[in-house]
């Protein structure tokens, strides 16, 4: 076995390129690709089975659309219903370059904003396509009955969002994700009723079956009966979301997990940019060790709230007793022109810095004040209530503090992961026949995602991109022979899965799955969270294999594998978090630059801002798996920028 400290090693393999995006002007590439892609005869589609894992915006939209096209779709979700995928929790809105406001928006501007917002670590071809498709998404969702906010004239309302100067965000109160997801869920339900989608709820994918180098099926566990089954298809689509839960405390749902993408990675799919994780600055801080997840508060609060901490360390006076001249409105002080409205990553890091200095507020000193006293004095309580009432109510319900009277306490939390499975322009991974869509892939947001763009990408991939590109794969790769459960690759995958579960149940140690999950989470939050250093990452990489060793010695999973067993589900997901956390830290260690959500303390400008190092790091890092605890292979995808030229961000 490789010794643990050697894990900071990796080898550099052949560079990797996206072969599918056509050359030519960026605004013609998607049309060209669609024209060049081979089609499958409608009469033959019925004979093709496609597996879709996940039923969020990307998966739900893809399942419904592929079934409408005539394919036989077999779809999975771990929830009890496809309607509960975590896309449902997105609050803010969805961007689209409709230019209904006549405020100078265009497809090119959305493309430009997204590439720049991603700190020049995303592919131009993909981002331009996303901006093009954004327009069609709104049409599609309106036709499905999504109740977007409207103006008195009956037309759609929009609002502006962080990082852009136009009003292009469509929304449905604070529940845009819910409404879009229900639209996709209803479209999917129609196809389930029509018999075109075979839906398996409460069923979790535990491995990928690769036959002759092509993805041909999955191993899945029925979470009610515990039965492990194999499912086969001509192509497999992963729409299983991001891996933010590796941090234990995040704004992800409790059961969101990385198992599907990690198992695919182990079977040959490259994992790109795992260290690109996004931290949201305005979450409700943890209230104690019992905290199980974090809740996000809309970023819009920073429009009127002022962020401050006491000037003195360890000042435990109630906020009202701290006089004005003993408060530090640190964002306004450090960034006089943007003030409280600096981008997410900057606001987050600044909060961490003041808390690290010992000036944080609330239990454990992990929080800063977001104060509306001035806004209330200026606009009146009623106006504040109209604008933020529902958020204030939510805050009060969780914390039992009245934000009209006491300043809110906020703290950053992990919220989205830009990294994911490497995919080409067709959204195909490095395993032929395996596609990754939505947050599960790495493609469109580079090193940082702009607000209201996650919903846009999920739906673009699911409704429009994948259903066009998957035809090409299916047409060019007619399956030669049927695969069934007796195929050696399937037998092997099932055996591995069963062995892993049996082993988890057999350890019978003295620590619960949650205790391990919390330990991993605290470690990666400390060393691979808001600010990262060479030294810290090495510490984490040293510690993670020790935790893994301890995990397999001390884990305790009660019950059996042949029943509904939530402890077993958790423990099995932690096995994958342990490995993923290592790759995430290694990726963060190797990328000795700061960009987007990835901040390396060694790479700062003289005034403390993130310093990108384009000459060395203008690439996507696609990692190839070798073995557990062994050095992975790095494949670099060089990024070129023909339309949006890299500049250093400045918000001072």
């Amino acid at each position, binding site marked *: 076995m490789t010794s643990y400290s050697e894990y900071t090693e990796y080898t550099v393999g052949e560079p990797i390129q996206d072969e599918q995006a056509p050359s030519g002007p960026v605004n013609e590439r998607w049309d060209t690709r669609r024209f060049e892609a081979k089609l499958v005869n409608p009469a033959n589609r019925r004979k093709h089975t496609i597996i879709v894992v996940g039923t969020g915006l990307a998966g739900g*939209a893809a399942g*419904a*659309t592929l079934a*409408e096209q005539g394919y036989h779709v077999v779809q999975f979700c771990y*929830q*009890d*219903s496809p*309607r*509960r995928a*975590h896309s*449902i*929790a997105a609050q803010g809105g969805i961007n689209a370059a409709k230019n209904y406001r006549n405020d100078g928006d265009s497809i090119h501007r959305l493309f430009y904003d997204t590439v720049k917002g991603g700190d020049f670590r995303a592919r131009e071809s993909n981002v331009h396509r996303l901006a093009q498709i954004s327009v*069609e998404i*709104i*049409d*599609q969702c*309106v*036709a*499905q*009955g999504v*109740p*977007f906010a*409207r103006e*008195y*004239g*009956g*037309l759609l309302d929009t609002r502006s969002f962080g990082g852009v100067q136009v009003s292009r965000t469509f929304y*449905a*109160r604070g*529940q845009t994700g*819910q409404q879009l997801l229900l639209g996709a869920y209803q*479209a999917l*339900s*129609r196809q*389930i*009723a029509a018999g075109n989608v075979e839906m398996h709820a409460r069923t979790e994918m535990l491995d990928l079956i690769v036959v002759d180098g092509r993805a041909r099926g999955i191993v899945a566990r029925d979470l009610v009966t515990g039965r492990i089954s194999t499912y086969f298809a001509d192509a497999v689509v992963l729409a299983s979301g991001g891996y933010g839960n590796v941090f234990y405390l995040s*704004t992800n749902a*409790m*059961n*969101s997990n990385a198992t599907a993408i990690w198992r695919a990675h182990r079977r040959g799919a490259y994992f790109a940019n795992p260290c690109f994780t996004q931290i949201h600055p305005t979450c409700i801080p943890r*209230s*104690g060790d*019992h905290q*199980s*997840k974090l*809740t*996000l508060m809309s970023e819009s609060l920073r429009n009127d709230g002022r962020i401050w901490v006491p000037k003195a360390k360890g000042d435990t006076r109630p906020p009202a007793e701290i006089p004005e001249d003993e408060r530090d409105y640190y964002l306004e002080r450090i960034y006089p022109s943007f003030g409280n409205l600096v981008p997410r990553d900057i606001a987050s890091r600044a909060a961490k810095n003041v808390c690290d200095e010992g000036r944080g507020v609330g239990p454990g000193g992990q929080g800063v004040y977001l104060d509306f006293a001035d806004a209330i004095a200026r606009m009146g309580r009623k106006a504040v209530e109209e604008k933020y009432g529902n958020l204030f109510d939510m805050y009060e*319900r*969780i914390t*039992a503090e009245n934000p009209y009277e006491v300043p809110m306490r906020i703290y950053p939390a992990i919220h989205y992961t830009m990294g994911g499975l490497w995919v080409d322009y067709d959204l195909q991974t490095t395993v032929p026949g395996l596609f990754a869509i939505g947050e599960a892939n790495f493609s469109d947001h580079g090193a940082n995602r702009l607000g209201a763009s996650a919903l846009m990408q999920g739906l673009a991939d699911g409704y*429009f991109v994948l259903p066009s590109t998957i035809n090409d794969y299916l047409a060019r790769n007619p399956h030669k022979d049927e695969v069934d459960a007796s195929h050696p690759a399937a037998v092997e995958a099932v055996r591995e899965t069963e062995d892993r579960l049996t082993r988890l149940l057999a350890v019978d140690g003295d620590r*619960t799955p*949650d*205790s391990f999950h919390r330990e991993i989470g605290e470690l990666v939050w400390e060393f691979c969270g808001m600010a990262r250093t060479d030294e810290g990452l090495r510490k984490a990489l040293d510690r993670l294999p020790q935790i893994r060793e301890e995990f397999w010695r001390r884990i*305790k999973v*009660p*019950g059996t594998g042949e*029943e*509904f067993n*939530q402890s077993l589900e958790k423990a099995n997901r932690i096995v994958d978090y342990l490995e993923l956390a290592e790759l995430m830290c290694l990726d963060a260690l190797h990328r000795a630059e700061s960009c987007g959500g990835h901040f390396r303390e060694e790479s700062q400008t003289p005034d403390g801002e993130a310093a990108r190092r384009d000459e060395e790091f203008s690439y996507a890092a696609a990692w190839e798996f070798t073995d557990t605890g062994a050095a992975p292979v790095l494949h670099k995808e060089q990024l070129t920028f023909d339309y949006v030229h890299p500049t250093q961000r400045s918000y001072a």
Partner: protein
Amino acid sequence: MKLTLRVWRQKNPDTPGAMATYELDGVSQDMSFLEMLDVLNEELIVKGEEPVAFDHDCREGICGACSLVINGDAHGPERTTTCQLHMRSFRDGDTIDIEPWRASAFPVIKDLVVDRSAFDRVIQAGGFITAPTGSAPEAHATPVPKADADYAFEHAECIGCGACVAACPNGAAMLFTSAKVNHLNVLPQGSPERETRVLDMVAQMDAEGFGGCTLAGECATACPKGIPLFSITAMNKEWLRASRKVKR
């Protein structure tokens, strides 16, 4: 806080269940109700007992997975989801009864986990607008009066948790069904399927074995999203209209 919990334990659908009593100490007022159960489960696992199974996911009140009847109230004493209920709603020394949703259409899977797939089938029966991807007209082609859009939204807020069924003395799913019927039927995009939608969804609702409505109003009281009782009235009107109009 020190609490006495009486929790419904049931190994699987075929084994009869019973209430089991647990003493739990060191509960903080700031914990959510589910975090309190997490603490109980951690203790049970370490003691070598099976933890209590319950459905939960987003823990921010929107996914609709959590589903506990607490002291006889669906989602407990506050008008919110179980995951957003906090222990400050209880007092030191309280005894808390925790039971699963009870309805023949929602059979118990294990402990506090029930099978709500009946709701999915009600939606599959007609809770959608037939708009295949790619076929959509320009979004501004059909303006929707703001009042209609707001009315649709008010009903579209349903999270499908099933508290309405759990609270209804008859285990009826009228509020769930009506929320979706009203959301889609008021919109111009939903009007071509207006009649078949309500007839098919109500027929499926009946076929799933939900009870009938006696307008007790418990559903609307329990609904964490505040879907109004008049949602049911509006669906009745739609159904009556559709059954006069459609000859089957």
